[in-house]
């Protein structure tokens, strides 16, 4: 066997290995329902903040507790052991990474999508004119 063949085989082995690791590491987008079924696996849930339900932040323990609604309307209480993100209430969409437990969803990371910075230029102008 020529050396180039050995190299090619090693490369292929590395590629397959990396692919498997990546697929294993990749989480899936889920609903709270799916997260509940797959607990304690880590999943990513995209949803919105439920502003009707209380949003409690306890600075002593820096524990945030709120309710989120996923894209299919399922809701769950979410616990986030970090300070409340700035402008949390203004978020349009929140992406929660974490796992479900028997009673609630424990988020380890929250990404927020805030209203676009290109806010209502037309409205600003329209309101001000005439």
């Amino acid at each position: 066997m020529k050396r180039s063949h050995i190299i090619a085989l090693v490369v292929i082995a590395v590629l397959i290995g990396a692919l498997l690791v990546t697929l294993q590491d990749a989480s899936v987008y889920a609903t709270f329902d799916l997260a509940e079924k797959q607990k304690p696996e880590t999943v990513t849930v995209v949803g919105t903040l439920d502003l009707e339900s209380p949003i409690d932040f306890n600075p002593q323990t820096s524990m945030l507790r709120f309710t989120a609604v996923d894209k299919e309307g399922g809701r769950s209480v979410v616990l986030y052991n970090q300070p409340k993100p700035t402008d949390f209430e203004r978020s349009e969409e929140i992406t929660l990474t974490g796992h479900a437990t028997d009673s609630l969803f424990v988020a380890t990371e929250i990404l927020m999508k805030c209203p676009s910075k290109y806010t209502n230029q037309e409205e600003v102008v329209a309101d001000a004119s005439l």
Partner: protein
Amino acid sequence: MNYLGEHTFWSELGRFFVALSFAGALLSAFFYGFQAFRSPAERAERPVLPLRNAGRWSFALHALGVLGTIGVLFAALFNHWFEFDYVWRHSSLDMPMEYIASCFWEGQEGSFLLWMTWHAVLGLLLIKTAKTWEYGTLMTLSLIQLFLASMLLGVYIGDVKLGSSPFVLIRELPDNLGLPWTQLSDYLLRIPAFRDGQGLNPLLQNYWMVIHPPTLFLGFAAVTIPFLYAVTALIEKRYTEWVLPALPWTFFGVSILGTGILMGGAWAYEALSFGGFWAWDPVENSSLVPWLTLVAAGHLMMIVKHKNSSPGTTLFMTVLSFLLVLYSTFLTRSGILGDSSVHAFVDLGLNGQLLAFLGFFTLSSLAVFFWRARFLPKSASEDAFSSREFWMFIGALTLLLSAGQITFSTSIPVFNKLIGPEGLLPLLGNKLAPPADAAAHYNSLQIPFAIIVSVLMGLGPFMRWKDTPNALLRRALASAVATAVVGGLAIWGLELYDVLYAALLVSGLFAFFANADYWLRYLRGKWTAGGMALAHLGFALVLVGALISNAKKEAISTNATFIHEDFPANENILLPLGDTVSMYPYYVSWKGEHMDGHNRVYDVDFYEVELPLASWADGERNHLKTSFSLQPFIQMNARMGNVREPSTQHFWNKDVYTYVSYADLRSIEEQAGDWKDPQEATLQTGDDIFLFNDYLLHGDTLVVVDAVFDPASGELAHLELVLNMTLKAMDGTTYPIQLPYQLDNNEVSNAEVELDGLPIKLRFDGVQDEQGTYKITAWKKKTEEPPFILMQAFIFPYINLLWLGAILMGVGSLLAVWKRLYRSLTSQSK
């Protein structure tokens, strides 16, 4: 119509310059294209100089167009012409002048323009230096510029929008067309919204953001030049000669792009509070990947240069680097990363155009490559196992695999678009999400690659082309011994017992010592010859610094409150105002806060215990001396959201990095005067109610002081009431209260009455019915909680190795470029 105060002329001038740059690029591609497909011999025999000159002049016109475009955009930003959509969106009056540059490239249009500018500058340099390569390279570059300029055109062809112009006026936006106000000639004076713009994203108001984008885009532009040479080489069948002129450009690109990427890291470290300089964010990844392949391409070029054969992989890698820049552009600008990245650009609706840009160059350059692939000269024999070229090739392959892995994981959103449940070919049942723990994912795969690369970097200088005598290899032994000693001590001292981490530390140190040894002993520390060694040892330091500062990053702020056994104590320390709190190895105290412009700055003092203590019984707290103060701040921005920004104390061997993770954003005085828990109550004379569980409120009498009826209508015109009540505290103290209420023609005035010495205030809200039931509201003052902030603090050990390495790497690769330029200049003059 003439619009008052509007800079209509400038807007049109700007668009003219964009059109000029577009037309110039088109003409230049056309004129150069005439000759690009003739062979060099043919061109030398029958030169058509007028065509060449026409190409040059067209490119010069194009460059003039680009220059003019920048000029007009800067003029608009500097003079705050808010009728320009771009100016309105990206700047505001109160913004410091030095950040005007950041406004310039905050938007997609501006950053395209930046990229185009560097291409134009490098293109002019190519015209001066490329000689026989001028035709192919400038034709290809003009085509690239044509695509870039089209992104700025902002014209409609039928219903299809071609590009997005930075000079479009707000009244010309599609959403505003035909609105009544656009018909007013004095709309700028009438409508207050035009007096100020939206302002720059606070995250970008940082000096790194003034220099990081131009450096990064110069790096991207430098990746283009070797690509131009590679394409020209394929067209003109000059498969090996092209590496000579391409090499200096390649290492120039390696230096500048690498520096640009690390500047981005420095910005993230200083301005963002995610706690580090690298987060494997898709946007960061997509600028790192072309750098990795460019480094690989540069090393492969050196193999071609020395062996004068087998250029296939080299050409491929060079073309790939440029295509990856285009792919990176597509990822960050098309909005496809939306869910997975915090700092991608906002979608401008240019996706089709971006895809065409990517598709055109991918298809055409790969077509040329595979068309010529069968003719590429192949090496007669395999490289010897002990040759430098063999191991250099392995190194390049490792870099390619590393780049491939990063690209694959970063492209997960793209896979969703292609084969996800709503994609073109729905193969997946569920959408894939990026790895939950990005750092763990990338580290586990990238560290092995980094280990291989560092070992090769260490051995590289001691290897020779074709065959390395063992005596030469033995020279590396000294470095191996040094590595064993220092590495062992470092692993023990840092307690770095993770196998992968320890292996990277050792291999990184080996690369450092081997290159330092080679430079100092065998090159006698000469600067001119040491470029390669310096760049390699710099990169080794970057790896070692990144490894130690990340693996041994220590959160010193911990919240001691026990929550639940499933919840680890988190990394936020509670700092009540004025208290001195232990945060090992420091004591910290939040002293106060002040406003500095838009920033709410928190003054935090750090103390150290003065050793030795006179006696332990005395306690540490009585022996504190101020060590340093930090000012983490929160940038207040009503429009785009508040941003917490870190503050860092630098030591030679560590950084202490803090930011405020939670704070009440009102000033301390406001917080103290905060009335909360409003409680409403209805009662009658003689009733008792409980207030806030601590007080008993008794209704005494309701007195009508004055009542006047309107004689005409018989309605009540003036009424004055006083409600007498008694508040009884738990300890039995009683407080008499008088609450006023006045009505004048339906105007109610009922002042809130604060009680002397009690954190209570009350208001009389009026009489409910004829029985004399009345309504009151009571508030309690928030006194139980003193103001506090939550803070996170981390120690990054030896992070300075990273920055030092970055500087050495940048300088080293520039020295290597200089050496090559110097050689080629002197060899030509001979």
